[in-house]
């Protein structure tokens, strides 16, 4: 597929794939704001995300065929340490692929929910904001410049606050949630920029690659360590690392369904990518302060997230909140994988990132379908839906099983990899905690599934009513992907392994 696309693509698309991936949505976002009709805006958003998706595939192909495994692009042909560099290797090629794939599916899927949840005169603006967010996330993933990363992070975050606040049409609590998110997100971003300031003070450069080459002789430098701490906490907050996750449950619960679905599968992933980029490529995992941060901060926090947030999910009654807390727990798995500090651990974390995007995407899509047809998200509202909306709920069940980690699903594969990586380090007790957390997942997803399939409908008037076909198709694509990649995991696992190798700066994927 990638080869075919690369052969078909014109030469300019190959050379300029990196900036086009970000700039096409960014250019079209204001155009969308001018559109008179929401439907046209939607169509254009679909096309735009589709184009970005193609560019992401092309970039992946370029990275895989490149002899050094890196595609570098100098914006405005300014030489590298001065100008902004877009730098793509296997790690961010993978992230770009996730963001654009989910973005495309989510946009296709979104129209019915947007019609139901957003005022008519705001739909075009809504899609405009979405494209800005989409472009920002891609920008974070693609840039090779630490300050530029901050800019894109803020572009995506600010548009996200807007998107979350637009949920006010359905639930007024979206407004405080968005405000809360704004405050927290700004703290995170400020921490990050302070950290960059420290690094700039020590190294005198903002280009990530350049920082990385200059750091080894500065490893004992206080401002480097301070910068490390600020960046770790700032990006950790953006990535919803426990206990800095408290903006997430509300933001995910009250925003429009489409936004929830898109953000849950991409936003924290991109922030986590940035964190990984800093932890592994810019700082090295063999720096003393990083080793201690791994073992004394990231790993305990990851484990705590897995367990505590799973517990919290168990006691929720709103399905979206269950899934939101579960997201924090899943981020915990990824952080755990990262904190092992080995290639195997990192690739397990990245692999879980991929799979989590698939399963959470599918789960929130199904929930969005229910919100659309039945206007409710509590477990009680889900009762008996297995009978009235079998297609939606079967997909939901598949993704839920994947979230639990049942064999033959993607979720199982990633937990398996995580287990292998932990065993490598002899940390079988951590494996036990992973297992325990999966056990909790059985409980919280089991509660929903039980209601869906075994309880009589709470409201007997609910007729057989599926989500529209426009929503079912992306939903089922993701659900089937969960099964397909649960059986043949080679493709995503290969991507994750390449990405982990690239993060370490090892060209092991050749």
């Amino acid at each position, binding site marked *: 597929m990638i080869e075919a696309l690369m052969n078909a693509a014109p030469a300019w698309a190959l050379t300029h794939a990196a900036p086009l991936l970000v700039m096409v949505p960014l250019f079209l976002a204001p155009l969308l704001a001018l559109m008179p009709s929401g439907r046209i805006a939607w169509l254009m958003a679909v096309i735009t995300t589709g184009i970005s998706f193609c560019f992401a595939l092309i970039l992946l192909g370029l990275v895989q065929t490149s002899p050094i495994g890196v595609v570098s692009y100098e914006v405005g042909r300014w030489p590298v340490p001065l100008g902004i560099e877009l730098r793509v290797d296997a790690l961010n090629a993978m992230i770009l692929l996730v963001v654009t794939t989910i973005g495309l599916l989510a946009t296709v899927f979104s129209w019915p929910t947007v019609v139901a949840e957003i005022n008519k005169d705001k739909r075009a603006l809504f899609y405009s904001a979405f494209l800005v967010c989409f472009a920002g996330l891609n920008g974070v993933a693609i840039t090779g410049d630490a300050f530029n990363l901050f800019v894109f992070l803020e572009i995506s975050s600010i548009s996200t606050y807007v998107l979350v606040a637009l949920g006010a049409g359905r639930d007024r609590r979206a407004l405080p949630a968005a405000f809360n998110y704004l405050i927290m997100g700004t703290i995170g971003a400020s921490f990050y920029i302070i950290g960059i300031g420290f690094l700039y003070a020590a190294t005198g450069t903002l280009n990530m690659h350049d920082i990385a080459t200059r750091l080894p002789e500065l490893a004992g430098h206080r401002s480097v360590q301070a910068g490390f701490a600020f960046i770790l906490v700032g990006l950790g907050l953006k990535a919803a690392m426990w206990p800095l996750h408290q903006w997430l449950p509300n933001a995910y619960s009250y925003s429009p369904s489409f936004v929830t679905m898109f953000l849950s599968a991409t936003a924290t992933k991109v922030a986590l990518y940035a964190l990984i980029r800093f932890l592994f490529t810019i700082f090295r995992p063999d720096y003393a302060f990083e080793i201690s941060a791994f073992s004394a901060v990231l790993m305990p926090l990851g484990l705590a997230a897995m367990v505590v947030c799973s517990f919290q999910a168990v006691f929720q009654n709103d399905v979206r909140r269950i899934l939101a807390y579960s997201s924090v727990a899943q981020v915990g798995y990824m952080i755990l994988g990262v904190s092992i500090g080995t290639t195997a651990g990192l690739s397990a974390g990245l692999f879980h990132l991929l799979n989590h995007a698939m399963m959470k995407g599918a789960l929130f899509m199904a929930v969005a379908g229910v919100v659309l047809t039945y206007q409710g998200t509590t*477990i*009680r509202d889900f*009762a008996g839906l297995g009978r009235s909306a079998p297609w939606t709920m079967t997909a939901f069940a598949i993704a839920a099983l994947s979230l639990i980690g049942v064999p033959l699903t993607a979720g199982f594969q990633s937990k398996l990899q995580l287990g292998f990586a932990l065993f490598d380090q002899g940390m079988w007790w951590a494996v036990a905690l992973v297992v325990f957390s999966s056990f909790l997942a059985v409980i919280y997803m089991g*509660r929903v599934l*039980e*209601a869906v399939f*075994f*309880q*009589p409908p709470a409201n007997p008037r609910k007729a057989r009513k599926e989500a529209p076909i426009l929503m079912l198709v992306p939903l089922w694509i993701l659900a089937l992907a969960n099964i397909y990649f649960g059986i043949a995991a080679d493709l995503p696992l290969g991507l994750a392994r390449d990405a982990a190798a690239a993060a370490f700066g090892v060209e092991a994927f050749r």
Partner: protein
Amino acid sequence: MSDPTDNGRDDTGRFVKRAAESVHKLNTPSEEGIHPLSQILFGWTHTKGIGNIIFWVLLALSAIMLSIDFFFPRQDYLKFANYAGFYGIWGFVCFSFAVIMGWPLGHLLRRDENYYGDASGPPYGVDPDAPMADEATAPHHSSEGDA
């Protein structure tokens, strides 16, 4: 097929019919719901004093079983199994012990049927005419939130 005459065929037919009738009779319970076959097979258990008879017959059988041992010594791998009457006595003791232990254990471990708070009736799909099915509450779905 080997019989050419009509007569023979009639006979066969009548035989089959008769057989079918008797089978049917054997399988049709009486007014009181008693299966005729049970009269044939287990009628003897209703005889008066059957308990006594069984008891004495078994006592005699046991005595015979034990006494045979004195005439036929065994060569088992485990020495103690060679003593006369070992298997019989061990069986008797074990059986009695298991049963007698039922008294204290029953007091210790038996709880009310609804101890775990979820006692419910027979499973889905039993015979709709089952007499005990309506005695307990009808199958119902669990409600959300408890247990």
